[in-house]
């Protein structure tokens, strides 16, 4: 459920660069970042 997701996955601001410019999106990345 959400609780498991919160523990295993964390929200991240991810930077994207295209030919038109740069912006950021919120994505989920697994907790293996630790």
């Amino acid at each position, binding site marked *: 459920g959400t609780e498991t997701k919160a523990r295993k996955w964390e929200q991240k601001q991810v930077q*994207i660069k295209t030919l038109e410019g740069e912006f950021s999106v919120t994505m989920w990345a697994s907790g293996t970042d630790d």
Partner: protein
Amino acid sequence: DKKSCPDLAGTFEWDSSLNDPAFVAAPVSCFQHAPMADNWDNITVGMKVEVQNTDCDNFSEDFPDSFWVATVLKIQGYKALLRYEGFGQNSSKDFWVNLCSSIVHHVGWCAIRGRPLIPPKTVEHKYTDWKDFLVKRLTGARTLPSTFYNKVHESLKSRFRCGLNVEVVDKNRISQVKVATIEKIIGKRIHVRYYETDDDDNGFWCHEDSSLMHPVGWAHRVGHEIDAPPEYLDRCLSGVWDEDDATENLFPLQMRQKQQFNQIVSQLATNKQTGFVEGMKVEAIDPLNLSSICVATVMKVLNEGYLMIRIETYDADINCSDWFCYHQTSACIFAPGFCEANNITLTPPKGFEIGAFNWNAYLQETQSLAAPSFLFKQWEVPNHGFCQDMHLEATDIMDPRLVCVATISRVVGRLLRVHFNGWEVEYDQWLDCSSPDLYPVGWCQLVSHKLEGPRVISPPKV
């Protein structure tokens, strides 16, 4: 890179099989010894990645400059079917990629390196501004952790290094180990050269977690036969090791096995039970023919829970050279009756017809005891995840430098029957679910080991 590594010439590519809708690869998380097995549950369908964009002008593998975002549609072993964002339901440019390869990254990887994402040629005119599209597609989606590639790299490192001395089962006399030196390591598979062998001897291959390889001093400690130079035997007696000697700390599985054995000993003492004794009958996988489970005898009980077993299918060798060492916690030995209970054909002792063998009569006739079932590991069945018909890559234990395409043809508790595609069932191998000789689809590609394809029988020439 096949171009720069001649050993990979002719390696089998799974890609055409992966497109078969019936194809199922055993998941990476089933292979505890495999790189990234611990983290693989976090790799999911629907995940977004940044991947080389091959749908562009002048694409060449030598100049892989262009990247775009793709969605993981399917996962088979280490391989994933990807579709570039913007293709919608159009599957024409879908492609399989090894998720652990260096052309796949977490979303955001390109921006960190200051590289813009370039949309594939097929869809580049579909949107005038890709920002809005990508925000919608990526917000709230999952991607790989930014440390994914480092984790892959870390998980590929061996505990061992070239030049270390180990004790390895002697391929020419399986009842003894022989001192050997590590010459090469590929994907934690170790190539050793035995001491004092001819130049044309091609040594032996095994995984670093294999039960066929032991630390220095092991044979001396457990009472196993060994072939070693005198100065090595002196070191065993003194316990003073060289810096090139691989000591017990490099063998965590065997250290754990030792702890398990000590627990078993104290448990048996508490219950006033005895463990394995010489002469006891068991069923065991034939180490020289892994497709057979045979009637066998415990010939000798060594220290620390090791047993010398003789397979009774063959004439007894007067020099005991056909004995083979199994640890008593090995999942390759079973209590008498295991095969019958699981509808497996038991290979009887020499002189018996298959089907005419009866354990009770045989125990009486030979006046021997059956090893009691509580002594065996077989009743511990982990939730291993392997199922019949799953595809994988497996070592040919009879020629362990070869890793081949294979299929699981049967699952009996923790025991797997592995079939080599294109070969007769006589070449099948019974292996434990935790065997380090089994690998996920895509492992060979990941570690740059050649993968042997299915045997193709060419039609006879007219």
